[in-house]
């Protein structure tokens, strides 16, 4: 137990901050994922074949390729791509991107593909009559979306979004390969310096279990809130 002490003697405080880091990366990635879903869901639902193809390409490729490979692409290719863009603007210095930004971006793109599928499914399962009725009533397009479609969609999407959140939370463990100090990386460091990998990796597993358990409790509350009246 003294291995988990706070302060200089134990790893308690380090693991605590690492847990906060995992949470921060997961939340950032989830939000980046929502941003991508916001772009690609309309594309997938579009009537134009070419736009449809772009949307399908995104979700198929990201969901068909291992997360680790996507992370390696961003980790090794990220700064190169930014430097290429910068060189077009006449900036030739070396640019190094923060591991936090690379990591949450990589996980965000993956999470976005899953969120896109969830939103698409939720919108498609809303009764067509709702769209037609609001059109007949002369409600403007964006008000129709915010006041009629979105509240109904959220109710249907929240159970599946909680799955996406779980996937995203677990995927953040993979960013440890880029050196960002989250739960997995911190356990790796602690296990290396104390030669007690069994304890620290098991403790990491407990931390992840705690995170998934607590977030499930929170999401269940949200679910109750949005399914009022059903």
């Amino acid at each position, binding site marked *: 137990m003294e291995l988990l002490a706070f302060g200089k003697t134990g790893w308690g405080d380090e693991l605590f901050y690492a847990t906060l880091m995992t949470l921060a990366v997961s939340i950032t990635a989830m939000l980046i994922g929502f941003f991508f879903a916001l772009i690609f869901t309309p594309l997938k639902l579009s009537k134009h074949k070419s736009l449809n193809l772009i949307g399908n390409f995104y979700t198929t*490729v990201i969901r*068909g390729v291992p*997360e*680790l490979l996507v992370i*390696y692409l961003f980790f090794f*290719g990220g700064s190169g791509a930014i430097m290429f863009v910068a060189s077009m603007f006449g900036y030739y210095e070396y640019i190094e991107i923060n591991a936090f930004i690379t990591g949450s971006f990589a996980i965000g793109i993956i999470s976005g593909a899953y969120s896109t599928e969830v939103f698409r499914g939720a919108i498609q399962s809303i009764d067509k009559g709702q769209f037609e009725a609001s059109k007949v009533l002369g409600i403007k397009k964006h008000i129709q979306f915010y006041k009629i479609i979105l509240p109904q969609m959220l109710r249907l999407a929240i159970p599946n979004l909680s799955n996406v959140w779980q996937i995203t939370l677990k995927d953040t463990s993979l960013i440890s390969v880029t050196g960002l100090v989250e739960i997995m990386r911190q356990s790796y460091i602690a296990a290396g310096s104390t030669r007690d990998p069994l304890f620290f990796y098991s403790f990491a*597993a407990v931390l992840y*279990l705690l995170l998934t358990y607590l977030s499930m409790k929170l999401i269940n509350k949200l679910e109750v809130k949005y399914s009022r009246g059903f």
Partner: protein
Amino acid sequence: MISSFPKLLGATVITLKLLSLSLFFGLLIGLLFAILRMNKNTIINKFAYGYSYVFRGTPLLVQIFIIYFGLGQIEYLRSTFLWVILKEPYWCAIIAFALNTGAYTSEILRSAFETIKPGLIEAGKSLGIPNKVIFYKIQIPIAIKQSLPAYGNEIILMLKGTSLASTVTLMDLTGVAKYIISTTFKPIEVFIVAGGIYLFMTYCVHNLIKFLEKKYGFQT
């Protein structure tokens, strides 16, 4: 880009080996725990639930690390014959994958068994069919049909999961891809080739499941 193709293709063999072995063992574990989950004894029931909860609630990476780095620490294990298996990263990866996919598979099979209408089992019983035959000839075929779409997803998830074998020094498709990226600094080209191979495999799995769904798509 083309020169890296044969190397990556060679590594694909390891990925496929990892996938098929872990799916095979995972299916056995999944079936066992699905049966335990339906047991009326609360302790056995809770144990099976706990197993699937823990393995579904923690990242696969943690599980591999516990098995590969963690278990070697136990002195007792080093003296048993198990150490022959546990010192190999290849078998450690397969154990971790099998336990992980077993947890998901048990959930898929359990929900498939639960969707079988009780009337079908009662009908079997009233016809005087022995319990064992009811299980093998009525429950299992229906459960297979019900669980095929979800199991297809699980195969694809596991295919992506095998990429984590590269973190315990195995040179699978992702491991070789990373090695080529870090020696040539051409991440995008390698990503396209390796990603293409993975996409092709998921495409094959997807179509295989579709074919099986059609084959087993009898009315229940």
